[in-house]
């Protein structure tokens, strides 16, 4: 589509601006704050990688234009991981050892993050995640140098279950991609359904890269559920939604997805209409900080910021808060500061808690609708939940009640 071209051109421009020595020199010649960002920029996960890069670059540009952070310019070291954990570990090690980055963003896939996290201590590096949903990163796989600024998989599932509790629907089915995120989320969902005293009638997992979902759709139809919980992303998600519309699945079953993003809506068009789901960030969130952010983003890129662009921006805000509080980027000092970092950001209040380094933040439930002034459908917020309701107890992946 036409917007992707302008967006691309704009992104190139921002890259130049970030990297331009002129900008760096403005910042009083102080040593730059180097942030390594291993991202999937090619391969199937590239959509998310691109978004994360945009979010971080936009932040770096904004900060550098104001004279930097602690008077030091932000320098991003972006590397392509192709979405492969082995390459990701190599690239992460590269930015740490070669470029001297002790701050990390990025790692698009959970498998990449899980491979990198055990090495953080050795590298003396802090990793602030903006999209890793795997509950174990703040649970069984927790390490002190990992911080999660984004909503986790269990949290987005919790948002959905809280919303469903209010409704009339009784029977639930679930379909997820056959990997950690899918299994995690569906486990949590099952647990939530049981607590709400409703029926979980079954689940099915599709291998990553599935192209034909007709069999899975048949299974969903046969299950006789009122609603189907979907845990899918990227190409699989697009294929599933397109084919669900082919079969008019939504006529029979309310589709509820764990993550609604603009990219998939653009990719599947009207097939997304009526889809309900949790979202980690949506540009229609109504607060001042977000309005200003969306405004500035539109000016820069000519589009609305998408989920991972917003999430990355918030992650940057949290890191910024931590650095400002610590007045340093020294790993130990920064870790201590980040443990109590709190921001009033585009999603409202978000605060890291010390016990598992998860950012407690509000969750949003949206429904995809047609709206005046937008060419494609957009997500409209239909419910919001405060952070303490949707965040599990420390290092837990399921909820008490």
């Amino acid at each position, binding site marked *: 589509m036409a917007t992707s071209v302008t967006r691309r051109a704009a992104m190139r421009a921002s890259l130049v601006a970030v990297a331009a020595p002129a900008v760096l020199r403005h910042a009083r010649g102080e040593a730059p704050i180097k942030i390594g960002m291993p991202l999937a*920029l*090619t391969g199937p996960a590239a959509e998310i990688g691109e978004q994360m890069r945009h979010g971080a670059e936009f932040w770096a540009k904004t900060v550098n234009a104001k004279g930097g952070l602690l008077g030091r310019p932000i320098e991003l070291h972006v*590397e*392509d991981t*192709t979405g*492969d*954990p*082995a390459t990701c*570990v*190599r*690239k992460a*090690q*590269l930015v*740490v*050892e*070669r470029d001297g980055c002790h701050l990390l963003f990025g790692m698009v896939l*959970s*498998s990449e993050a*899980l*491979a990198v*996290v*055990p*090495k953080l201590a050795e590298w003396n590096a802090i990793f602030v995640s903006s999209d890793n949903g*795997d509950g*174990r990163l703040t649970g069984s*796989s927790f390490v002190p140098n990992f911080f999660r600024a984004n909503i986790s998989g269990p949290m987005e599932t919790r948002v959905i279950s809280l919303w469903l509790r209010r409704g009339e629907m009784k029977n639930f089915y679930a379909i997820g991609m*056959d*990997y*950690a995120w899918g*299994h995690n989320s569906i486990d949590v969902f099952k647990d939530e359904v049981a607590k709400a005293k409703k029926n979980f009638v079954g689940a099915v997992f599709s*291998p*990553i890269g599935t192209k034909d979902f007709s069999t899975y759709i048949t299974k969903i139809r046969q299950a006789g559920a009122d609603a189907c919980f979907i845990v899918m992303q990227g190409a699989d998600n697009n294929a599933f939604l397109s084919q669900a519309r082919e079969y008019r699945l939504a006529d029979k079953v309310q589709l509820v997805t764990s993550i609604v993003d603009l990219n998939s809506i653009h990719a599947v068009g009207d097939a997304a209409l009526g889809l309900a789901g949790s979202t980690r960030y949506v540009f229609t969130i109504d607060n001042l900080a977000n309005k200003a952010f969306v405004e500035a983003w539109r000016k820069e890129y000519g589009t609305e910021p998408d989920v991972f662009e917003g999430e990355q921006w918030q992650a940057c805000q949290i890191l910024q808060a931590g650095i400002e509080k610590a007045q340093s980027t020294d790993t130990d000092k920064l870790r201590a500061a980040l443990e109590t970092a709190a921001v009033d950001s585009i999603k409202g209040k978000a605060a890291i808690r010390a016990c598992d380094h998860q950012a407690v933040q509000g969750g949003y439930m949206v429904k995809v609708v047609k709206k005046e002034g937008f060419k494609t459908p957009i997500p409209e917020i239909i419910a919001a939940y405060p952070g303490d309701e949707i965040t599990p107890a420390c290092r837990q992946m399921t909820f008490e009640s």
Partner: protein
Amino acid sequence: MNFSRGLAAAACVLALAPAALPPYAMTLLTEALILGLFAMSLDLMVGYTRLLSFGHAAAYGLGAYTCGNLLLHTGMPLLFAVPLAALFSGIVAIGVAWVCTLASGVSFSMLTLAFAQLFYAVAFKWTTVTGASDGLAGIPRSPGPFGIAIFAGKAGFYYLVLACLLGSLLFCRMLVHSPFGEVLRGIRENEAKTLSLGYNTRRYKIAVVAIAFALGGLAGALYAPFAGFANTELLFWLFSGQVLIMVIVGGAGTLVGPIIGAAFFMLVSNLLSSWTDSWALFFGLIFIGFVLFAPQGIWGLLSGTGRAEGRERVRWRFLKSTS
């Protein structure tokens, strides 16, 4: 033969590398050597026996998962876990090869692919052993025996990898120049004739697949503690395709060539992808360029021999004259 002199020189240079190179370069070099070992193991099949395997990632993955599990759950020292994993990979290969060698040519390639993909599927589902899609993380470089911990460090581990590579190279050279290797050469050039001369070619093929898997498993077993993790991607067919390309780019049937090919593949893709997002474009052009302008591979370019090309020419003329 100046091979031994060249090898000694290369070994000396590589042995001195930790003193001269910065840490990140050492990281890259270590991984390049591991991949080099992996590519060399495949060369035994591709270059010496004309067994085009499309599933060699299976060997790497088997080695990596086995070694990872041994290190994570048994507390076995690194020095025991690595060879044990290689051995296991080689033993599994006997079964795989027994089935795959029922076919030949393209069907053989596709059977190897099928097995690798089946292993991939198993790795995805057998959560307790493989950690499913997450893989195994935090794999330690356990010390011992007798508290030997030297291999846990960066330089120490590098020397372990280097020793494994050089040892395997010498082993492979011995193998391909032995009577056994001569039979492999016969299979490469004319399997039906080799069979009719009284060689049980299938048994030779199974043997060479097992050896290649053991050495490929050794590479995988080194990778697990090197990277600290093992993941299903190590078993994916794309990786099998890549290592095949490494062998061909380096120069199949030369042993040293594939090592260089692997290093080239990894270092250049790293360099390019740090430099531009469009690295794949240039990478692809490099491959096509190689085929068109350096058909004998990197090793052929370096050693100045047109051996591979000469061989192709001889074979072509022969086929022309007899068909």
